[in-house]
């Protein structure tokens, strides 16, 4: 499809720019992050020559031309070799991130999609029944929810359902009594642990989608093609869904792309509050411990995920709107 081909170069170029920026930043920083990292590592235990070299490739070799450093860096990234983390010594960075990523994707990813789908449907309904009790309730409720500070929601939920009622665990991704694996007891434990953080993200995100979709719908409902569809005797359902909602969805899809891009990097607060073993929590730990190798790799993962999410949503948009396609 030509539409995809036309967008591909932009993706490649932005990806390259992100990777290169990630290469340059530690080298431009005052001091020598590589040296600091090596020194810190030495404090943790013995550092092998190959470990030292991996860190220097990523963060900057004291000697050697920039070009050859860049080449080494690219090779390391292609091999998934981001050096070694000293927060989680002696685990390699790639393994640490690999362990955290599924947690974040499963929790935040699912909830983001859920918030978008549920919020959009509620928005359609509110706009279609404009002026009804449902519409008023939804609008007021969502404005309230969207205005409520995010960490407040988290703390209130934690207190009420975690401490007082004791229905849900307070911290972590699963209980200590089970070990991660593809079995039922682990699944149940993980699900139980995800309820409160999921609910927090849902509550804080849902209102925006409802209000946004409602507004888009109201705009579209004033369009000529809605009046014309009605004049042609189409059923209210067809007019509401196929004519109004279908068009009102388009701006929402772009916003959804941004929300998806933030799934990996944007969940810091939730994960920290709930001690959830995902990327956000990892990033927090990396920053607190000045774990440069981990930070650098995380930034790369987050940027790439934003770019990829936007690319995918761009493609979806092309499917939904024939006017941008060719």
């Amino acid at each position: 499809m030509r539409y995809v081909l036309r967008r591909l170069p932009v993706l490649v170029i932005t990806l390259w720019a992100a990777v290169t920026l990630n290469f340059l930043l530690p080298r431009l920083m005052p001091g020598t992050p590589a040296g600091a990292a090596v020194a810190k590592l030495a404090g943790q235990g013995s550092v092998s020559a190959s470990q030292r070299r991996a860190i220097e490739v990523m963060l900057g070799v004291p000697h050697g031309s920039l070009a050859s450093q860049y080449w080494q860096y690219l090779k390391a990234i292609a091999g998934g070799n981001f050096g070694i983390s000293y927060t989680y010594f002696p685990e390699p960075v790639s393994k640490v991130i690999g362990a955290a990523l599924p947690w974040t994707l499963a929790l935040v990813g699912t909830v983001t999609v859920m918030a978008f789908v549920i919020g959009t449907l509620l928005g359609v309904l509110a706009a279609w029944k404009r002026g009804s009790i449902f519409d008023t309730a939804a609008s007021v409720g969502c404005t309230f929810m969207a205005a409520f500070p995010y960490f407040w929601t988290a703390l209130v939920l934690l207190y009420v359902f975690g401490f007082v009622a004791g229905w849900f665990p307070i911290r972590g991704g699963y209980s200590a009594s089970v070990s991660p694996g593809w079995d039922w007891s682990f699944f149940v434990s993980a699900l139980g642990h995800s309820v409160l953080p999921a609910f927090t993200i849902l509550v804080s995100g849902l209102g925006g989608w409802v209000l946004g979709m409602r507004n888009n719908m109201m705009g579209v409902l004033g369009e000529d093609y809605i009046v014309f569809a009605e004049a042609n005797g189409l059923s209210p359902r067809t007019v509401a869904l196929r004519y109004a909602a279908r068009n009102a969805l388009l701006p929402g899809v772009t916003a959804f792309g941004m929300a998806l891009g933030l799934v990996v990097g944007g969940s810091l607060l939730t994960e920290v509050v709930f001690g959830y073993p995902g990327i956000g929590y990892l990033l927090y730990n990396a920053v607190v411990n000045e774990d440069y190798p981990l930070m650098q790799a995380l930034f790369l993962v987050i940027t790439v995920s934003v770019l990829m999410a936007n690319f995918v949503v761009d493609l979806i948009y092309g499917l939904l709107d024939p006017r941008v396609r060719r």
Partner: protein
Amino acid sequence: MDTRPPSQSEHAPLLTASGLEVLYEPAGGPPVHAVRGVDISIGQGQLVGLVGESGCGKSTLGYALARLLRPPARIAAGTVVFDSTDITNLDRKSLRGIRHNGLAVVLQSGMNALNPVRRVRGHFHDVLGAQQRLHAAEVDNTAETLLSQVELAPSVLDRYPHELSGGMRQRVAIALALALKPRLVVFDEPTTALDVIVQRAIMDTIARLQAEVGFTALIISHDLGLVLGATDQVWVMYAGRIVERRDSPALATGPLHPYSAALLACQGDPTAEKVELGGIPGSPPDLSKPPEGCAFAPRCWLSGPPCKEEPHEKLVGTGSVTCHMAPTKLEVPKLIRRVDGPSEPIPDSGHGAKVPTTASAAVAKGRGRHRDATTAEPLALIDVTKDFKTKRAAPSEGVQAQGLVQAVAGVSLRLEAGQAMGLVGGSGSGKTTLGRMIVGLERPSSGSITLGNLRVDKLRTRDLPRYWRRVQMVFQDPYAGLNPLHSVGYTVGRAIRNHQGLKGDDYRRELLRLFDTVGLAPPEHYAAKLPHQLSGGQRQRVVIARALAAKPQVLVADEPVSMLDVSLRAEILHLLGELRKNTGASLLYITHDLLSARLVTDQLVVLRQGHIVESGPTSSVLRSPSHPYTVELIAAIPTVQQSQTVPAGAITERPGEPV
């Protein structure tokens, strides 16, 4: 539920409305009384036109009759009966039944009437599928038949709306309406915003379909000329009321209401030996404060003491008129006239004095004082071309051009100092591109443009502001051209400062003089207004004042009247003509409207797809065209034979009503 008797008299009413009142009740605004007591009926098989300036309530009435009004609008009083069913308060579900039984609507210009993310085929599936269960193949068959009725190929079924031209979209909308097997079709401005030739073709299609399919139609338009040629009967609407209801030929030859007569005087035949045009100064009243007495009185040259009372409907033959003075001999003051040979302005006397043609008065005052463009120079174009790269397939009737589009293809012309030249052609003929190249907004791909010895096509961007002191452009859309956040005085003032560098008292004096020149008097009053507080005609005057602030040698006017009501056309054209005479500036007048070109230009250039197909003195090009395209353009104009004599129709008071 079909209660039609087996044999029907041809003109038994299919739709009647009595005492119909419509209110808009917007949140946080005063209610607008858009339809104020309308009694009408449409007979089986009739073609009725509904005309009036914009804002008179035509669309609102059309929507009320089709039960398409939505909040904040509501039918406040009266009844609508369609086919012996009272539909005034019918619920949504029963209304759908009525629509499938044949009450169809085609919306204003149809541009946005189609769902942008749905193919034409999908639209047909939705409409046909809503009536009865059909197999996909049956739907496709029916859709193809319907499309062929509106002269479109079956391939259109696979197109998205944005891949179709405006005219094609309107045809698709008509075909969709026909899918309802309608007995009554309400057309709201079916051809507004379409090219003249396309406009003519669509009207012909409607007329042919009406004869073939036999539906009854209400055609709403602001263009009386268009409606008169296409209908049996016309209703003239003003300020929410029907002020005259007559058979079309009778209205064409003898309007009884001053408003109808004035609307008629805004029409003319550009190919006649002598062309005169009237206008209606002022604008329709604000319907949130409906006026006392006759609503037309402030703009009526016949108004007298009785007009303080609301006039009553008087029956005339098969129609009616609502005016105290009817019948009187109606002679409408003309604002602008053109006879073969040198142009002939209308002296400011007689009727002209009674109608507030502030513009001409102001210009007359300023005459001789300001002959600004003393060193006028000729503008010459030699072999100018302009290519555009298209990102997307260019939608035009039938063909899809790709890659390079040649908007202007080797045009050479010469506009002498002080001359007025018209540039006419259909849409896509390259008129606007040519205008934009002349003012330096676009650079030719090849060829040269010179003003005196200045190579316009070679100007650097930073030299453009200086060039714009000599050449100014007036754009088509008086709404888009003004910053909504600034008072119009500020807008014009900035142009004065930029171009003339005036300050203090001189600046102030110049500002007031310009407002006066374009007929916005008293200037102090208008200068303080924001654009949305002015009517369309007033806004266009502001735009012209801003152009004049540069004291240009050349004024390029791109469709300055096409977005305005016809009632304002004469005023603005008159203004342009006077300004040109008094400042000595030359005028390049770009339009698709041959009538206005005839009235303000001496030379005419006809463009088609970027080429000049014909040029010469305006009256000879229009009166004896030699190129088939010019002939086609002229043929597309709806013609009305007018004569300003009142017919000897008996006028009676409506029985049972006080006089």
